[in-house]
């Protein structure tokens, strides 16, 4: 097991290295002179040269890459191209914290609800509830988040104005009340995306297990239905669901670009859109690296969880 973990961690490092190359390569294709783009048309020759020297834009590409990667590993993520040249790292870290808050809230809401719906749909297969859940999850899962998000804001939040939910979300202060107030709408929106996916997977898993002989054995030996379901079926059926939930954490941290934009929430995704629009290279590279790191980490955790929960799997 420990050998497996070490190998996976090494693989994670390799993945990061490869993607860092891809990302660095991609951001170099930006047409036009970056210095000119940032400083504007009126900038004098001297200012342009200073800018290039300051950000090392005159160095050959491999040197730039090594400098950038070395800085990244040692925690120096460079400075933003935007006015005032704030350091990239604290900004990204702050946004990362905000994104994690939103991810936490989303998991708290979406996981119990979608598992419950999936299990119910499987236990009452082909009932009206099953059909309703299947149609709902099929249609909602494909809707762009801005459609569901705006539906929530305008339909529900404005409809029940008395709740005083803000249409734009800011970072919650410490109190539980503010957490719910600020984050309920964006996390509900993200829940809509996850819900269909997790519920359908859960349903399929439970249906699969119900067909297996051990369920019949348990039933025939006189175990109460509830015990068959909770003690036997669910323990096996929820394995793939747990893996998918772990995987979705990566998406929740770096992939909520659209939802953060809808609610004006200052998360990592919103920062990335700004960086793209401003051609803020160092910022963009840092955000993408962080996002990919969490994606890869979520992948790793999902695999490990699967092995821990299912001792039949041998990781070698």
């Amino acid at each position, binding site marked *: 097991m420990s050998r497996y973990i070490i190998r996976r961690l090494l693989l994670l490092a390799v993945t990061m290295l490869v993607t860092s190359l891809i990302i660095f390569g991609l951001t170099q294709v930006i047409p036009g002179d970056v210095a000119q783009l940032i400083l504007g048309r009126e900038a004098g020759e001297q200012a342009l040269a200073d800018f290039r020297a300051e950000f090392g834009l005159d160095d050959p590409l491999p040197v730039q890459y090594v400098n950038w990667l070395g800085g990244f590993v040692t925690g120096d993520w460079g400075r933003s191209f935007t006015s005032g040249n704030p350091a990239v790292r604290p900004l990204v870290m702050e946004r990362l914290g905000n994104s994690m808050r939103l991810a936490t809230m989303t998991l708290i809401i979406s996981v119990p609800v979608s598992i419950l719906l999936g299990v119910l749909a499987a236990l009452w297969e082909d009932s009206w509830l099953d059909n309703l859940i299947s149609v709902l999850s099929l249609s909602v899962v*494909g809707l762009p988040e801005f459609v569901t998000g705006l539906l929530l804001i*305008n339909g529900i939040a404005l409809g029940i104005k008395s709740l005083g939910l803000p249409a734009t979300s800011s970072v919650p202060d410490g109190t539980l009340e503010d957490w719910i107030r600020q984050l309920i709408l964006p996390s509900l929106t993200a829940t809509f995306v996850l819900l269909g996916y997790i519920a359908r997977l859960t349903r399929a898993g439970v249906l699969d297990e119900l067909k297996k002989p051990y369920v019949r054995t348990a039933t025939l030996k006189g175990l109460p239905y509830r015990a068959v379901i909770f003690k036997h079926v669910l323990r096996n059926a929820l394995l793939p669901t747990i893996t998918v939930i772990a995987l979705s954490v990566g998406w929740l941290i770096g992939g909520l670009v659209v939802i953060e934009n809808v609610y004006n929430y200052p998360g990592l995704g919103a920062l990335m859109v700004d960086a793209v629009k401003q051609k803020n290279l160092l910022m963009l590279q840092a955000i993408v690296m962080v996002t990919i790191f969490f994606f890869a980490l979520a992948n790793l955790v999902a695999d490990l969880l699967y092995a821990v929960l299912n001792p039949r799997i041998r990781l070698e």
Partner: protein
Amino acid sequence: MSTLRPGVESKRASRPFYARALLAVVSFFRQLARHPVSLVGTLLVIAFVLLALFGPNIAPHRFDDLIRGAARQSPSLEFPFGTDRLGRDIFSRVLWGAREIIAIPGIATAISVFLGTCVGLFVGYNGGWIDELISRALDSLLSIPALVLALVMLGTIGPSPVGIIIVIVLLYMPIVTRVIRSATLNIRTSGFIEAAKLRGESLPYILFREILPSVLPALTVEAALRFSYAIFLTASLGFLGLGVQPPSPDWGRMVSEARANYARTPWELWFPAGAIALLVIGVNLMADGLRRIFRYEGQV
């Protein structure tokens, strides 16, 4: 794929091509009709494709017509979807916009499916180090979240219809390749492939005449799914302001712009958002119907 019986097949084969095509379409809709929700989805998609083809012809105005004295009209007989703050007819704008939201994902999906199928068939059948190399390369591309990769690429090549198509192809071709490759791996040791090899058939013949028909279920379902995701992505990019640039009417951008005016002209938001929702739901239900017909259990 097991739905074709040999006897029926040979009888059909003697009919002319168009008759066979017609029969296939009729049987397709018959199978769809067993699950009405899928039928509704397919009809929705057909309706939207027709809109994309003829929308601009039946639209009462051009998408950028500023109708004098008709700013901020609520939906009425004259302006079914109302008008925006500049006096542009939302109905016409939605009709004009249908073309891009169907064409860009459609073209991109077609290219990804075509390239993905060619590469997938080839590496799946041939195996060896080429398979290993291509699979690893695709794996690393797939390890980057789609929207993140799309944003970085669009940031560099700039937002344009061609740019979006390139981004979608780069994102989805690896996925199609993977699906086709694994479907090919499953059947490449079958007897009929061996027989074709022994007959001395050429590689393209084996790939496209022997293997392709067997992976067609996987291919069809995958194509429908990719189309749905491509629409999703195109609309989202439009919403983020990185899609097709003004003045052409992009549904995603229309929704984004309508947010600021929601208090005064809420219909500006309802109709393009509703159009996106209907289209995506239609494509998803159609893909689900295809999966039922082919009894294909691929990735959800």
